[in-house]
């Protein structure tokens, strides 16, 4: 196994880790993915033939709290990364768990919110607002869920010794993903909820 450690830091042309570079490229493609979903939402804004309409149904105060929760989870993610980079495994575990829990809180908020919308008559099939809203926020929620699973995996793996300060890069990349998902939510919250 010894030459593995030697191979862990191969020379790269940019000095950046290849996996980090790949992940940034992936985030670039994700920008286009969410950008297309957001554009579809904006193109169909105001075009629904029947209600419910955004003004009637969206609950900005409630969603603001969800947004704050997700924002705070980015803070805890930074703290988790700091923890593992400094070799403080306890700190890492606490903050990565906190991040995952805050993410789950956000998701719970989404579920509550969407259930109430459905009860009020907003469905995927009902009108264009329902279709574009739920597909956009649904894919975002799916990304958050995948992130939550990723974070818990890192949490569990840290106990088995597979996540260590030497491969803090893994946590850093998870952090990039998590912050990205947060930024996308800011964009959605602004364009869907705040600007009507």
């Amino acid at each position, binding site marked *: 196994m010894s030459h593995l450690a030697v191979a862990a830091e191969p020379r790269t042309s940019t000095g950046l880790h290849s996996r980090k570079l790949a992940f940034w490229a992936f985030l670039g493609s994700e920008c286009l993915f969410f950008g297309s979903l957001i554009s579809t939402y904006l193109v169909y804004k105001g075009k629904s033939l029947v209600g419910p309409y955004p003004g009637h149904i969206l609950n900005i105060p409630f969603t603001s709290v969800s947004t704050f929760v997700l924002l705070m989870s980015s803070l805890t993610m930074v703290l988790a990364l700091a923890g593992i980079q400094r070799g403080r495994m306890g700190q890492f575990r606490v903050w990565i768990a906190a991040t995952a829990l805050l993410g789950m809180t956000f998701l719970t908020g989404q579920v509550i919110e969407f259930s109430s919308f459905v009860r009020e008559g907003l469905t995927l099939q009902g009108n264009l607002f329902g279709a574009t809203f739920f*597909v956009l926020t649904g894919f975002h929620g799916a990304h958050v869920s995948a992130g939550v699973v990723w974070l818990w995996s890192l949490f569990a793996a840290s106990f088995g010794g597979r996540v260590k300060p030497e491969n803090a890069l893994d946590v850093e990349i998870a952090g990039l993903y998590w912050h990205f998902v947060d930024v996308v939510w800011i964009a959605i919250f602004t364009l869907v909820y705040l600007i009507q």
Partner: protein
Amino acid sequence: MTTAAAALPAREAGPTGLWSWAATVDHKRIAVLYYFTAFAFFLLGGVEALIIRLQLAGPGRHVVSAQAYNQLFTMHGTTMIFLALMPLSASFFNFVVPLQVGARDVAFPRLNAFSYWVFLFGGLFLNLSFVAGGAPAAGWFGYANLTSGQYSPGHGIDFWALGLLTLGVSSLAAAFNFIVTIVNLRAPGMSLMRLPVFSWMTLVTSFLIILAFPIITVALILLMFDRMAGTHFFVPAAGADPVLWQHLFWLFGHPEVYILILPAMGIISEVLPTFARRPLFGYPFVVYSGIFIAFLAFGVWSHHMFSVGLGPVADSFFALSTMLIAVPTGVKIFNWIATLWGGSIRFTAAMKFALGFIAMFIIGGLSGVMHASPPADLQQTDTYFVVAHFHYVLFGGTLLGLFAGMYYWFPKATGRFMDERLGSWHFWLTLVGMNLTFFPMHFLGLLGMPRRVYTYAGDLGFNTMNLVCTVGAFVIAVSTLVFVANLFRSLRAGRPAPPDPWGGGTLEWSIPSPPPEYNFAAIPEVRGRDPLWLEQRSGPAERRGARGLRPDAHIHVPAPTGLPMLAALGVALVPAGLIFGLWLSAIGAAVMLFGIYRWAFTPI
């Protein structure tokens, strides 16, 4: 894990057996897998074309029914673009790029294998439609609302959309891999402006892929939601606009055509200098024009929609942007011709194909300029004129370029030459065949023959020209058989080839033919563009400095693994389950997650 000792035999026997291919993570073998799979799909697409041409050889023929014909032209286009041309290009990315940048493999060898297997499974899934209720029949760009459940009942369009979604995963993964390989794994001294043009074009193409494919991914997802979940993204009765599909599709679709042509342009930028014995003229301009084309590619999409009625302002904007994109394309052509100028041209098979590319691409590019003018385009679009245009750029362009690459790099990959005489026959038959097939289509279009018609009236003056096109298609078929014969004969008994059969200037020619699994015994140090020519011009004392250091004492080669194939199978089963039953999707998801987890936690 395997390692290789410092003293290296000149040519090593590679591992053999089916499992060695299933579990390979070596970019050179993955390239071979891509090549043969893509070529098989190319033959399938070609058979589809021959049936189409038999049907159209005369008016009112009944070789196939209308519905079968509509499936054939849909599958011909989809197959040629996504299952033949793109993966053939990927085959060259795989084989050539790590060698040209001086690396031992791509950045993520297992992800590389994964890309190939997803391609294979996706392609098989798409073609399963023929025997599972009918292939898609709405054209390769599947306009809404014809593709809705109401107007396209059955599963044909589901296979199409889900198949393309799967193939998108393959292309995206490969693009990430090549971006990182080219940006991060270059040999010391190889700055970006010393990168061979083929690798540059691979980089640009990869960026186009990662930015364009997500858009069609969203479009296909919206379509599938309409077809399977009852949404109304493209249902006019609910207030939706089918033109949104066109915008989303072409925002992907136009970059896609540059994804199709830039790699071939990269190939001939390597072939021409080698056989003209001159470095590429205006290297920086060729590179910058490729980058400029990529940027502009996202600004011209609505030139596919001039008849939709977007309004004079939009039409004018896209007319101007489309004309603008002709400029960097022209710059490349002029630089290629200038490369020949003053050179000493050797007409090998590879060179013939490269020269044929230029000649044919000029024609295709010019008919493209004709399309750029909306009022004129209102007579040309959706007719055989545009069919002529894109076949000239894709067949006369991309395919000829890919053949040039094959004759050029085959000796490196196999240690044997392809037969030059058969190659010459292949070239001439191809050139004659393609012009016979596609040149009359310019006339057919301007004389009023629309595209995508399973038959035509016998009194419109189309009969003779269509017959000529059909004859040409069979000439192409013969030329393809010549190539296949050459390929298999050369694989078994081709004349042995040295490391540098052509006197090339780039790094791949500095290692044995075929290369050892680890490519370079010692990672070279690069001092300029065309490092081999640079070294050959320098004195012998400087040779070692230019070309390499002591052989590495310890080379780590990634171990073979079946996990990428397993994960790919899972990825392909998830969409398949949407047609065959959600239990299949659940199995697919489980297999995929298992494969990915094991892979993520297995050190390379």
